[in-house]
């Protein structure tokens, strides 16, 4: 079990309020991802759940038990830190055994679980090494191994992959996703990586300045962002947001159109927006074209097929898919 509920949780650091009253429910078995710009309070929120920070007000409830005043060691959660936070004076085996030893588990069972975790995480050959003798990826596996052996009611991850190189990150991302599918344990995952959020989450929580902007499945957020902030934050490349006359035509303050929902053509078309190519990024599979000269949005980004042959200075004509235009009012809220 691992149902986590935050009720009117507030966190102040001295005078500054980092989390204004906030409510959130993470269901048992759910993979929840916190995203948001740097400094918005993702880590703080995770640490409040962990118990590593005290709440200023409000309640933290895990499995219907008020744990607000319970110490981190008694909450039954496991955490994977960005810095890995392995015990440098212990071997990999001792690191993984540590939480089980603290729980007073018998040694035969401990060894069984260490072996199982080591096999699953490809650590069998490194069990007798110290963390200092491992690569970043291996250290991260040890940190994950240490978290899974005790079968916690939920896992907390704070940007666990951000210190790894791109290739390793993709691999580990898949491993964690698979781990979640297999174990069906609640996971709360902090990241600022778009792709991690979209691919791993059952539920994404978008935060800005400690306030939840939207909660929903990755596709909900993609198709129906609740406001301008979420619209601009979810999706890569970012949604184009236009203000001014184009928006007025739709009776909105702001309209948004995703780069993949714009058709680009070098031939003049009726009603199309006319612009000049600034940079065309050819990725092979796709081409990201950054276009100048469109009123209310500069540059405007279009995602076109990989074989589109445009270059700097070309004049292009853009036709947005009218069904996929997002409209927002004066407060920045979605008009449906």
């Amino acid at each position, binding site marked *: 079990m691992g149902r986590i509920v935050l009720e009117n949780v507030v966190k102040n650091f001295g005078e500054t309020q980092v989390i204004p009253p906030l409510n959130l429910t993470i269901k048992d078995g759910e993979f929840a991802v916190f995203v948001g710009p740097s400094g918005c309070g993702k880590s703080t929120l995770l640490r409040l759940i962990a118990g590593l920070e005290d709440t200023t007000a409000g309640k933290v409830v895990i499995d219907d038990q008020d744990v607000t005043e319970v110490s*981190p060691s008694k909450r039954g959660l496991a955490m994977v*830190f960005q*810095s890995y936070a*392995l*015990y440098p004076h212990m071997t990999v085996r001792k690191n993984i055994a540590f939480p089980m030893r*603290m729980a007073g588990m018998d040694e035969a069972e401990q060894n069984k679980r260490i072996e199982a975790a080591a096999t699953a995480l490809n650590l069998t050959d490194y069990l007798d090494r110290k963390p200092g003798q491992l690569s970043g990826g291996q250290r991260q596996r040890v940190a994950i191994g240490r978290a899974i052996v005790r079968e916690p009611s939920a896992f907390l991850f704070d940007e666990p992959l951000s210190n790894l190189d791109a290739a390793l990150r993709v691999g580990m991302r898949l491993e964690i996703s698979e781990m979640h599918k297999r174990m069906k344990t609640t996971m709360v995952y902090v990241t600022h990586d778009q792709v991690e959020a979209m691919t791993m989450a059952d539920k994404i929580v978008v935060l800005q300045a400690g306030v939840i902007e939207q909660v929903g499945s990755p596709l909900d957020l993609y198709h129906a962002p609740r406001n301008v902030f979420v619209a601009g934050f979810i999706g890569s490349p970012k949604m184009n947001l236009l203000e001014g006359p184009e928006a007025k035509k739709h009776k909105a303050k702001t309209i948004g159109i995703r780069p993949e929902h714009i058709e680009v053509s070098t031939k003049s078309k009726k009603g199309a927006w006319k612009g000049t190519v600034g940079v065309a990024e050819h990725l092979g599979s796709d081409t990201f074209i950054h276009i100048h000269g469109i009123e209310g949005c500069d540059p405007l980004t279009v995602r076109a097929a990989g074989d589109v042959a445009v270059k700097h200075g070309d004049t292009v004509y853009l036709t947005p898919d009218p069904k996929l235009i997002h409209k927002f009012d004066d407060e920045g809220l979605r008009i449906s």
Partner: protein
Amino acid sequence: MAIVAQNSKFGTFGRPILAWAVALLFFFPIFWLVFTSFKTDADAVNPEFLFFFTPTLENYANMTENYDYWHFATNSIVTSVLATAVALVVGIPAAYAMAFNPSRHTKDILMWMLSTKMLPAAAVLYPMTFLAKGLGIYDTHFVIILVLTLVNLPIVIWMLFTYFKEIPKDIIEAAQMDGISTWGEIKEILIPLAWGGIAATALLTFIFCWNEAYWTVRLTTTEASTLSALIEGNRAPEGLFFGRLSAVSAAAVGPIVVLGWFCQKQLVRGLSFGAVK
């Protein structure tokens, strides 16, 4: 190029020479002390025998015959070891709390502790003496251990605090998530990770205790007197017993010099690199 060459020449010759010069400068008093301890009291003050004299062990023989060196040495060992141990037992949890669970007043408390070191010992001589006598602990090991502990505690906590500060907070937090108790944190994480720093602190405290002379002289008469009190007892204003005094002093600093020699690696590492690296 020329500058590099000059630098490396200085590196090969200049630096060792400088190092030796400094080492000799610091070692000279010890050497002279031991040297003088082999002279008779009469020879010691006679310029004729400044360098050339007939060495004698008389002073050392005197020491065990007339005033039971071993009684004082035992007292020194017992009080220094126990005071160091008590200071660590009190200091480790205190420094731990301040390093990892600081409150708004932690900095003030640290400053206040340091400020107690600025109080001249002489200012509290009378209260301390009356207290010791009134409580019936004058001239006991207990009062010496108590005073040595208290005198050194601020330094012990400060040193430990700086070493503990170098341990990444994440590691402590990871241990908390893994279900550790507070005592477990100290035993399993803090002490192993700060081991070098704790050892350096212990050694330094031991040396301070061993050499402490103000209170050990003033709060004891015979029973609990330490080696520093013994040296004090051999001091004569006329300076007539230089040979004897040197022998006593050499025998008093001897153990600490030997200890320092064997632990120098530990000391240097602990004092310069800190806890984790």
